[in-house]
């Protein structure tokens, strides 16, 4: 214990007690197993065999420095924070040993030592708490949830909504459609699908062979390009409608080839 207060300038841990050197040696064996300098300090503190609140921080600092010296001598690479801690503990030691310098700010050596003791105590407390936590009965190990949970069935019900206004507007839209027609300006160049459909319904009944779509265009709609485009589009749309209804078949042998239409012998059921 005399060694405790000696600060041997020849250093190399020779100043530490035998006990400390043994402790340091034991630690060296498993440097990798430590979780940082605080962990090492906590382990070292156990060799003092006192309550952490009454620990000699000075002696702890000595033990730690011995540990670092030993590692150095054995050429064991210590992580930087171990060395930073060693430097800080050297500083702490000097603060504890030398009379306080009134010009210096900051906490006193005693305050620093007390804080270190607090940190060790807190770390130990957290470790104990962790152990207590892990010792509790655990779900899936000691107690169990329902092994055969019954799934909640999610029923999706769609509710359609419509207001009276929707209904009336819908009706108004249909009933005013016809009146609306004469006001459309360039109507004479437009052939509607309805018109095409009506026309084709009449014609398709006679055709059992493949016939070019273009031959369904109404008279007088094939010359003017504008009118031909509209009539072709309407006729094509109308023929798709007929196919959909199962009244006709449609085919095109290759891209851009003429589109052909034929009456379907037995209309598809649907």
């Amino acid at each position, binding site marked *: 214990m005399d060694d405790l207060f000696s600060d041997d300038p020849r250093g190399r841990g020779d100043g530490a007690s035998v006990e400390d050197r043994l402790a340091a040696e034991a630690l060296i064996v498993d440097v990798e197993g430590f979780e940082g300098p605080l962990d090492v300090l906590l382990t070292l503190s156990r060799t003092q065999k006192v309550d952490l609140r009454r620990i000699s921080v000075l002696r702890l600092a000595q033990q730690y420095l011995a540990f670092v010296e030993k590692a150095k001598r054995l050429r064991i690479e210590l992580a930087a924070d171990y060395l930073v801690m060693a430097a800080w503990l050297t500083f702490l030691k000097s603060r504890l040993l030398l009379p306080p310098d009134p010009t210096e700010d900051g906490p006193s050596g005693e305050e620093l030592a007390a804080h270190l003791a607090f940190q060790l105590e807190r770390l130990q407390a957290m470790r104990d708490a962790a152990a207590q936590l892990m010792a509790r009965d655990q779900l899936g190990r000691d107690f169990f949830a329902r*092994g*055969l949970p*019954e799934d909640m069935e999610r029923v*999706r019900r*769609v509710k*359609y*909504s419509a207001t*009276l206004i929707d209904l*009336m*507007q819908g009706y108004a839209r249909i009933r005013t459609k016809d009146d609306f027609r004469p006001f459309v300006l360039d109507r004479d160049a437009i052939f509607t699908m309805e018109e095409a459909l009506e026309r084709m319904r009449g014609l398709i009944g006679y055709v059992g062979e493949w016939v070019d779509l273009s031959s369904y265009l109404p008279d007088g709609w094939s010359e003017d390009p504008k009118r031909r485009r509209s009539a072709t589009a309407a006729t094509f749309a109308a023929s798709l409608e007929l196919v959909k209804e199962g009244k006709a078949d449609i085919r095109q042998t290759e891209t851009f080839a003429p589109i052909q239409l034929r009456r379907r012998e037995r209309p598809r059921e649907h």
Partner: protein
Amino acid sequence: MSIDRDTDEPILFDAPPIAEQERMVEAILFASAEPVTVADLNKRMPHGCDAAEALAYLRKRYEGRGVRVVRVGDAWAFRTAPDLSFLMQQERIETRKLSRAAIETLAIIAYHQPATRAEIEEIRGVTVSRGTIDQLLEMEWIRFGRRRMTPGRPVTFVVTQQFLDHFGLESARDLPGLAELRAAGLLDSRMLGVGNMPMPNSGDDDEDDVLGQSELFED
């Protein structure tokens, strides 16, 4: 308890009390991911236990409870009481706007009932898909009316009481006519329809119509 679990020596005179065995069966059935047979229960419980007897007590205990002990094949499991199965469903109601096609079809039926499909198509100017009619039937907003006494005897559609309830109408006759729609600003002024729009069932329809309407209000 002096059951020697290491040597597997049966110590028959010291089986746990039946109440304790019942707790065991309860816990095993609860935690097991599959129904458990009586043989399995016996295998898992300490020596000297009688799983069948414990199970009988357990079943009795759960009689009338929110869950019951039921037999699944030759095994046993907890299941929700059938009368509470409604709790196991989470109903999500999605509200969707009715499609334009459905609205228009519905409007035509309402204003012209009874209406055949051909009539609806004539008024709308497009074919009416089967799906649209089915949807309205399913919603119970329309139903089949009398067949029209014309060639082919086509079916007709009329609106239902549910339809009237939903739209807050006493009868389909209460639907406003076009003039009123216009007055209410529901019609674009450009769409000025001449006065040739029929009031719903204004009487210029055939007899069948009138019949259909009255049919609607019979019940």
